[in-house]
């Protein structure tokens, strides 16, 4: 089978639906078919390089809340496919792990687990990769404040000798964000003007 457009993919994989996309071919694939679909992509359609694994948190009230996103490149046909797969559970989201078919998925999935809290079933070693291991939150979730939440310092002995805690960062007029859409002037980075979040001001 040569390079896929959506119609020919749909013929073969009836469970796919098309996604709006500004650039490359983009499909929705139900989580339970994800492994099978990606295996076929790799073995039969030449999509052999997994470039990115990430996820979207739509919002706390939205259901399904989390969507896993995969970008795969064909190094022979030189084009991309984007696959989106909704996580069924909103409270404890999970997806099948692609680490078995694309070794590159290993660290990507650990990162997505760390930041979003999506569990990848079948991952060989699903632990945090950016934050320290006993960190209790998943910081890129929508309800997590940019400044952070007070938690104990990573190592108990160091916490004691340095008398340190992980404290919310002072926002000092920030966070500074660029609104999406609008004229050049409107999308300049702007201060969202959150108040000083630190209890005691630094002297």
């Amino acid at each position: 089978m040569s390079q896929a457009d959506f119609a020919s993919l749909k013929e073969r994989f009836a469970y796919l639906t098309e996604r709006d996309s500004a650039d490359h071919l983009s499909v929705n694939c139900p989580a339970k078919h994800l492994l099978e679909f990606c295996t076929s992509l790799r073995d039969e359609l030449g999509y052999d390089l997994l470039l990115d694994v990430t996820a979207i948190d739509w919002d706390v009230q939205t259901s399904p809340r989390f969507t896993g996103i995969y970008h795969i490149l064909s190094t022979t046909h030189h084009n991309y496919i984007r696959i989106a797969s909704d996580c069924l559970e909103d409270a404890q989201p999970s997806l099948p792990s692609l680490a078995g078919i694309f070794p590159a998925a290993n660290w990507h999935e650990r990162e997505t687990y760390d930041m979003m809290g999506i569990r990848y079933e079948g991952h060989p070693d699903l632990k945090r990769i950016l934050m320290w291991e006993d960190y209790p939150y998943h910081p890129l979730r929508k309800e997590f404040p940019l400044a952070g939440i007070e938690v104990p310092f990573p190592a108990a002995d160091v916490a004691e000798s340095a008398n340190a805690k992980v404290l919310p960062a002072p926002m000092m007029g920030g966070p500074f964000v660029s609104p999406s859409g609008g004229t050049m002037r409107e999308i300049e980075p702007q201060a969202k003007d959150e108040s000083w979040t630190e209890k005691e001001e630094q002297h």
Partner: protein
Amino acid sequence: MSTESTTLGYNSKVEGEVVVTQADAVINWIRKHSVWPMPMGLACCAIELMAVGASRFDISRFGMEVMRFSPRQADCMIVSGTVTYKMAEVVRRIYEQMAEPKWVVAMGACASTGGMYRSYATLQGVDRIIPVDVYVSGCPPRPEALLDAMIKLQDKIGRESSVKNLTAPKAVAEKPAFAGKEA
């Protein structure tokens, strides 16, 4: 040869081969001219730190070229870069392994205050876990700024009561970290 900052008076015609001075002056003079930095390079500022070590800026003009990657052999930690909470544990451990007397230079906005990283992952200033002697502003600071800081550190070392610190090391060595005030 006697200036305001040295307490050394020496005239070869009068004293011959004997120099009369104070223990503090001798100890501080030795210490400040052989600072052994521990390059705690954590982000982009470390590149400027490397420039300071290289020939163009040449930190060896101040007797500090012996950068040691082992904390046991260093006495001045130059924290150059963003200190994440995950790394903060390591920074503190390495600091604790350095032998007294020891000094800390917070190089750049990140090490001094967290810099532009006002986020959940970044320690908002390394002074929350270790006592800092000199702060350097800039993102990153120019190599000259770091050299200036190191010269300021030399001045500071020159003003220490080293003999008193030797006899009562704990009382003086325990400078409170910033976070200590909050608890």
